[in-house]
């Protein structure tokens, strides 16, 4: 892991990226979050932590994940497309990079219980997995709607020994699961660590999760060099729910102005409808889940229930880093509809023999919006595999 100390995109001492971030938490969470803030950097940059983390990433997760030149997809778009194969990580998504890091941290903080939220179930599975690995008790909150649409992941979490608790309030999706996980942490402050699944939440979570996920772009740079003799592609593309796979994919390119950064958000039925989750198109600055960021909300500050076909993108906010990338113009945001994503997913299956997670399909659909030249290189984060989504894909077949 490399530090971004002097970057305009590094988090400030107070936990801000430009105008966004901070730790807007009730006093009940202050001791835990403060303990984390004071210790996280010192712990994760210890040599023995790094050694254990890197060994697990290699032997348990299966890193480095391949950077695959997608020949037929490149032909279709008349350019050079590389897929960063996070879908080949153990458990089937990038989420495990973060959960490995956080479980090692939790152990060093003396915590013996874990709570997590999950949307698509990938973060829940990745959390349940590392808890099994370390023999730690695990509770995962998941919205009732998501329990239904991501059933295979619910079964996996249970088999891994986690307790899955339904979040029954609000839209019964990721936002509500996050509320419940935070309430659980308020009620169990001493022995429990909260493993947040994305670059959201109070400082230092966004920065900590981004650092754990930064291994993605660290590898991409090396692998690009091996493929084409330069570490710099023309584009890096990722989907943004909370934004953890995106943060990992962009991390080591943030200060490379020649590399264009593209973020694919979930437009749901479209940004002009009331069924969308495209936060940069529909949101305003606000506070939710402990940080100030862009937030989909009414004029009166009530959070709007989002919609996306993809459970992992069905969230009314984005991480504060991404709000800053948006505001500063460093990243270009695209709103990808449910239908566009599903088509892009089908397309990848037929052209490359890879079934992507519906989340990742949003990143693939971004290709249709870019004015690509035949000598350009594009890296897309294939954040997860689509096994969990088969029942949804079937409806589009």
């Amino acid at each position: 892991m490399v530090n971004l100390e002097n970057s305009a995109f590094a988090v400030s001492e107070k936990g801000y990226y430009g105008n966004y971030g901070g730790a807007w938490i009730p006093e009940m969470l202050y001791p835990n979050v403060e303990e984390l803030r004071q210790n996280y950097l010192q712990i994760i940059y210890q040599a023995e932590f790094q050694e254990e983390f890197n060994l697990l990433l290699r032997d348990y997760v299966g890193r480095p994940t391949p950077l695959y030149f997608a020949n037929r997809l490149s032909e279709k778009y008349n350019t050079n497309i590389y897929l960063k194969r996070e879908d080949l990580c153990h458990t089937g998504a990038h989420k495990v990079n973060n959960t490995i890091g956080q479980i090692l941290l939790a152990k060093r903080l003396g915590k013996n219980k874990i709570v997590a939220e999950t949307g698509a179930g990938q973060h829940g599975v990745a959390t349940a997995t590392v808890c099994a690995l370390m023999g730690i008790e695990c509770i995962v909150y998941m919205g009732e709607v998501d329990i239904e649409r991501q059933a295979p992941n619910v079964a996996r979490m249970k088999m891994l020994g986690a307790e899955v608790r339904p979040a029954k309030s609000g839209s019964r999706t990721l936002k509500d699961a996050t509320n419940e996980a935070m309430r659980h942490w308020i009620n169990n402050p001493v022995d429990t660590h909260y493993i947040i699944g994305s670059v959201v939440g109070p400082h230092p979570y966004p920065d900590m999760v981004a650092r754990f996920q930064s291994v993605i772009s660290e590898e991409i740079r090396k692998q690009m060099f091996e493929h084409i003799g330069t570490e710099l592609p023309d584009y890096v593309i990722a989907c943004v729910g909370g934004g953890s796979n995106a943060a990992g994919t962009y991390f080591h390119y943030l200060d490379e102005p020649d590399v264009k950064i593209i973020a694919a958000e979930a437009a749901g039925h479209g940004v002009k409808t009331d069924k969308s989750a495209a936060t940069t198109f529909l949101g305003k600055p606000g506070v939710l889940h402990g940080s100030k960021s862009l937030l989909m909300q009414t004029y009166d500050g009530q959070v709007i229930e989002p919609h996306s076909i993809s459970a992992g993108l069905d969230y009314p906010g984005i991480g504060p880093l991404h709000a800053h990338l948006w505001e500063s113009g460093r990243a270009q945001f695209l709103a990808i509809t449910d239908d566009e994503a599903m088509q892009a997913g089908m397309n990848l299956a037929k052209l490359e023999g890879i079934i992507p997670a519906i989340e990742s399909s949003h990143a693939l659909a971004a290709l249709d919006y870019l004015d690509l030249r035949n000598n350009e290189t594009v890296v897309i984060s294939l954040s997860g595999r689509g096994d969990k989504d088969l029942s949804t894909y079937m409806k589009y077949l």
Partner: protein
Amino acid sequence: MNRLEQLFIAKPREVLNIYYTAGFPKLEDTLPILQVIQDSGADLAEVGIPFSDPVVDGDTIQKANHQALLNGMNVGLLFDQLKNMRETINIPVILMGDINPVLQFGVEKFCEKCQQVGVDGLILPNLPMDEYLQDFKSIFEKYGLFNIFLITPQTSEERIRKIDKNSNGFIYMVSSASTTGSTQGVTKEMLDYFKRINELDLKNPRLIGFGIKDHESFMQASHYANGAIIGSAFIRAIEDADQPAASGMKFLKEVIQ
């Protein structure tokens, strides 16, 4: 002088503070319930601004927030409902809620409205102390509003001292590590914590809240602090009542005895 300050000078012991959610059970109940709280003999009231995602709240207050929003409650309407409250209400009134609706309304405009209708203080649990000191304090002071901070059993002594230094009105002592609405009553652990804080000799009065639900727990809390705060138990008393005002009054009479 701020009404909160006056209150604790006039009545340093057994102060009863009642929380309820604005616009609940019915949209028009905000002022009638406030009147009931005053008429019952309670000493101050905390009017909750409903929020879609109330993270510090348990089931009871979550449901009240949800219903109030369905009823059409919002910040602008709340100020309309409270516009003439000082014609009949003399007890201190505090607004409590999530910071986001306040930010969207506009902090300065919000505080100005508070002053106009006669609000005395604010409890915004997810407004952190650092942000408060940097960006909010001067605005609150300009409009005569006291900011009330929370402490919990996990708050360090060093931080409690800092909170005491920056508080006015009172300090809100959260009785245990929990969301609102716990029904376990006052435990031995809580008593130890109450005693510990009592011995710190803080400059601000303290009210104990979360899990205070009846006369007995009110008295226990009052023994170690200047009084207590009841929220969920009061909401439970009015939520399904045909006559919320009458049920609320009956409940409060039993608490105060």
